[in-house]
């Protein structure tokens, strides 16, 4: 197990022994704006893969990857089934499919039943990612009006990963970050700018 000094403030020092390997993000209402404060700040050589579930009406969803690909230095895609997860790539779950992480570091899709009325489900992504990356995972919950992601983030923490949550008082919709913090009190509650900073700091040696 890594040594984690549990903290809710970004200024506290966090000592970790495992290198981060991957980032997962779950976001719902107000998500495009929130992601716009984070993804475009990451440099082209950012070394971690980032997997994202955003709840959107199905027709909007498929243009999201394209939208961010234009705005970001990173390569942003909608996930294809069984593709290799590459460092520095951003993968969005496609409309109407769950996105899961396989132990051989590949992406999998599934059309099984919605979870908490959501497909894609943040919980499904986070739970499978926690299973594969364990302590090497950073899980992030941003704005949203439903509790999807809370159970998933709890699993990230349980497997030794790091949990970051957007400050509910700053979120466009506070229910999702509130639910996540309620289930994972040890998660760090931060502003979007602080989350973007933490993602950079996490990979500095």
């Amino acid at each position: 197990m890594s040594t984690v000094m549990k903290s809710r403030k970004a200024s506290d020092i966090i000592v970790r022994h495992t290198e981060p390997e991957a980032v997962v993000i779950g976001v719902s209402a107000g998500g495009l704006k929130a992601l716009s404060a984070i993804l475009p700040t990451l440099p082209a050589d950012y070394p971690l893969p980032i997997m994202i579930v955003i709840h959107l009406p199905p027709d909007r969803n498929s243009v999201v990857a394209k939208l961010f690909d234009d705005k970001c230095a990173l390569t942003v895609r909608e996930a294809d089934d069984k593709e290799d997860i590459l460092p520095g790539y951003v993968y969005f779950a496609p409309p109407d499919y769950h996105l899961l992480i396989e132990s051989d570091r590949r992406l999998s899709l599934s059309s099984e039943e919605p979870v908490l009325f959501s497909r894609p489900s943040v919980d499904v992504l986070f739970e499978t990612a926690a299973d594969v990356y364990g302590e090497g995972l950073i899980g992030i919950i941003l704005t949203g009006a439903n509790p999807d992601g809370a159970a998933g983030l709890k699993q990230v923490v349980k497997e030794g990963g790091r949990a970051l949550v957007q400050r509910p008082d700053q979120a466009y919709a506070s229910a999702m970050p509130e639910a996540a913090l309620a289930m994972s009190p040890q998660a760090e509650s931060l502003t979007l700018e602080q989350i973007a900073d933490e993602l950079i700091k996490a990979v500095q040696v």
Partner: protein
Amino acid sequence: MPPKTEDIEIRLLLEAIFRKYHYDFRGYAMASIKRRLLQARDHFNCQTVSALQDMVLHDPGMMTAMLPYLTVQVSELFRDPLYFKAIREKVVPHLKTYPSLKVWIAGSSTGEEVYSFAILFREEGLFERTMFYATDINHDALKKAEAGVYSLERIKLFTENHRLSGGKGSLSDYYTAAYGAASFDKTLRKNVVFSDHSLATDAVFAETHMVSCRNVLIYFDRELQDRAITLFKGSLARKGFLGLGSKETLRFSSSADAFTDFAHDERIYQKRDVT
């Protein structure tokens, strides 16, 4: 890192199911099947997956009860309407040049995809010359497919999908509604053979002009996907068509070279003339 106990147990359970019942889930994508097996464990009140294995091995009725956890049965009529629109507009003109046709719908689940094809082929004047093979490993699903009865609540979505696929008449021409259910016209399945066939263990059974296998390969690992795609290659006549689910790809298969992209966005491929 040593493997997690649960992962060992899941491998052993799948091995047990294969040895005892000859259902082969060993090459399935683990992330999704693991989630569903842990749900089964909880549903059957087992403390561990090993305890579930004990039940599965000693009670043959358990295999039937486990199938809904091992397979995913989500489907719609004209699911992804643009796929069916591409078949209608781009594939049908090629199929029209054949005097008789065979179409294989692999992983047909509860039949929605079969009725979509039957209706589309009827609208396009191909129905009478076509033989459809609808295959799946789930008996209950095959039975439901054969019955062709769906809850009326789903008809609104089906109707909209049918329209978006370029549907010619009204979907209501093809079913009768009674007691909250829509029964599809039985003449739609007069040229359909429903049968038990596994892409994981069975061989090619017929030469076909089109294979539609949608949202089945996503549950397989790359190796098993490759087996299935190689079966499709073996079954398809030269210049035959292969349609996959909207996020599935031939890209990782050793048989990829035998095909060309036919309708890229709709994931429809055509087998090459010479392979």
